[in-house]
């Protein structure tokens, strides 16, 4: 079981990811509505893995990633991107993101990435 924090401004996406995780024995320890929320909650909930959306209000995923990596260089963060975001994802990977998944994703992809990263 992996303790996961989900960061996405869309409640719909959070719900989809959360259901995939919980149905497969993982625990969602926090849901964050934007990057700022994620940066604030990360030290509190200390997740083992973070699913981070990229385009969000208040603070974008890439900035949240950098802030969290500063706090905890061992943080495991997987970026949730869309088609057409190559450069941001590349930047994120260079800044310490463990992996990324591309929307639309299904349970197989999400679980595979957890298997690979953890």
């Amino acid at each position, binding site marked *: 079981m992996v303790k996961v924090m989900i960061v996405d401004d869309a409640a719909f996406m959070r719900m989809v990811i959360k259901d*995939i995780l919980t149905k497969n024995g993982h625990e969602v320890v926090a849901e964050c509505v934007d990057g700022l929320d994620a940066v*604030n909650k990360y030290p509190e909930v200390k997740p083992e893995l973070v699913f981070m959306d990229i385009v969000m209000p208040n603070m974008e995923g890439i900035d949240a990633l950098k802030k969290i990596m500063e706090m905890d260089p061992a943080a495991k963060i997987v970026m949730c991107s869309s088609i057409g975001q190559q450069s941001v994802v590349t930047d994120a990977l260079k800044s310490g993101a463990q992996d990324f998944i591309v929307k*639309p994703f299904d349970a197989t992809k999400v679980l595979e990435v957890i298997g690979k990263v953890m």
Partner: protein
Amino acid sequence: MDMSEYKEIFRAESEEHLQQLNDSLLGLEQNPNDLEYINTMFRSAHTLKGMSATMGFNTISELTHEMENLMDMVRKSQVEVSNGLIDILFECLDTLEALVEAVDSGEEVDIAHLQATLTQAMEGNMPVEHIKNSVATSIDVIQNEIAKDIPDEGTKTQAELDTVIDNIELSDNEKQAMQEAVNDGNRVVSLKVILDESCVLKSARSTLVLINVSKMGDIIKCTPTEAELEDEKFDLDFTVIFATKSADDDIVGAIRKISEIKEVVPTTIAENSGVEEKQQETKAVDTEEKKSASAVKRSDAVKSIQSVRVNIERLDNLMNLVGELIINKIRLNQLASDLNAKDLDESLANLDRLTNEIQTEVMESRMVPIDQIFSRFPRMVRDLAKSEGKQINLIIEGKEIELDRTVLDEIGDPLVHLLRNAVDHGIESEEERKQLGKPVAGLVRLAASRQRNSVLIEVEDDGKGMEPGHLRDVAVKKGLLTREEVDKLSDNDALNLIFMPGFSGAKVVTDISGRGVGMDAVKTKIEALGGSVKISSVPGQGSIMKLQLPLTVAIIQSLMVTVSDETYAIPLGNVIRDVGIKASDIKTIEGKEVIMLRGEVLPLLRLHDILESSTEKEDKQNLIVVVVEKMGSNIGLVVDDLLGQQEVIIKTLDNKLLKNMKGFAGATILGDGSVSLILDIATLI
């Protein structure tokens, strides 16, 4: 993966984003230079794209993808914010709305035309794709000859190498680096990586491979170059040459841990003979950890909304259950007092308090801000005004006022109608306003305010108002009333003529208002909710419509009456007063019973007859009359007895047998467990 269970939340959230897009676009239209609007729209479109792609709604994701591209170009000042652009984007939003709506029906919406328009908008200003000339940087072509340059005991045979490092060009610098690496006891490995065909972000995937490779050694060369990889200028495979001390198995293992990798083929192209291959821990992790031991100062905690979405059906059920709970509580109270059980009193008092609290909480949880329907009106009024060549300032007040979800769902159409009337018939044309000395821009005000137990919504305009005389003429012309009848009406009553079925105030029926739903429909709907509509108007200065609405429809205040030993509930919203009369005071006009009450002729109806009850009241001399209002006129209902005022919980009659029954708004269960019907005055008489 079955996505159908997410449809509801997908729709709800999509609608929020559509609203946001609409609002931002309206804002952008006003302030074309404010990029924040574009940024917000970009984010919303992007989020919609991701959500719809996840649901498998490809049309939505295609459209939002292109909108996103267009907005990105606006952001980068490659496309100018023009009226044309705003119109295109509005069209996109309408189409998106239709698409989201069609999610349930699975209807196809054709977006080809719109896509073409979008492409034009993007191309009209600047080509989207422009291809960079990539410059070859390599100097030497030493195909098939790498191995010869390096001391090469234990390396692969020439033939094997060909397959792996074909077409690789090495510069002198790179050859130098290889030599040095080998001298330091490294192996030089050429790693061919083939990505999965399903891989979408190939560049990012290759970056991830390179990051992992660099943790195991030093990259000497990459084919295609790293820059080309980042620009996604490669097919599915790439080769990286690097110096490492890791064993092949570890290398393959590490790269295979990355998703979407189809194949990893390592080939040693140079190594120092005699040097034992040692597995070494990579340093990368250590150094990274050292880098950032410094604690990061936490910014102030941000408020996050902790909310869950609940299906409205759940809330309905909950409300129903609370109703049952209250009924049972009342029965318990009754039993306790019958039994005279003092011990029960305290716990019953507690139960009382708790059920009251639950009731309040459940009712509160059903309340939603009226903004949910108000927010779509700016766009509607804008479109209306534009199509009629009018200028209109829409002022919205009290959008934070909360109403029960059920009430809110019902008042959307009536409000649309009232606003359309205001813009269409109320506000004069620009020239007319100029001549009258009014400001060119018409004013439409939509305001909600909380009264004690109800919400007041006002729709006001500063247009031409209504002329009672004109309304009388129309009523006669349409054959609704005779000239005699209308002449008897007071000016205020004449205004109420517009609520008569078949009456339309417009001289010319435009395509905007006067489409079937008349003012009578508005009034019927509001009254069915237990509310009321009032109208006032000053010719030349404008009109104001006042809708009074109950906070909730689940629980209503009722007057309990009996007819032939049956108890009925009359919603208090309909009741004007009750009076006792003598049978001898009843007069007959044209065979119908009436009574003079405070100087007015009040038609009487015997509830006993309407409900076709069997037994009649014994005392036929002293009658009790409940005066109710229907369509602006008063009617007296003769009942057997008044039981008093009570809060009743409505149980709707929505099963197949009963739902077409007229005259009843529903049923309720009384404290003693008996069922009583709630009269619906609008359809009963």
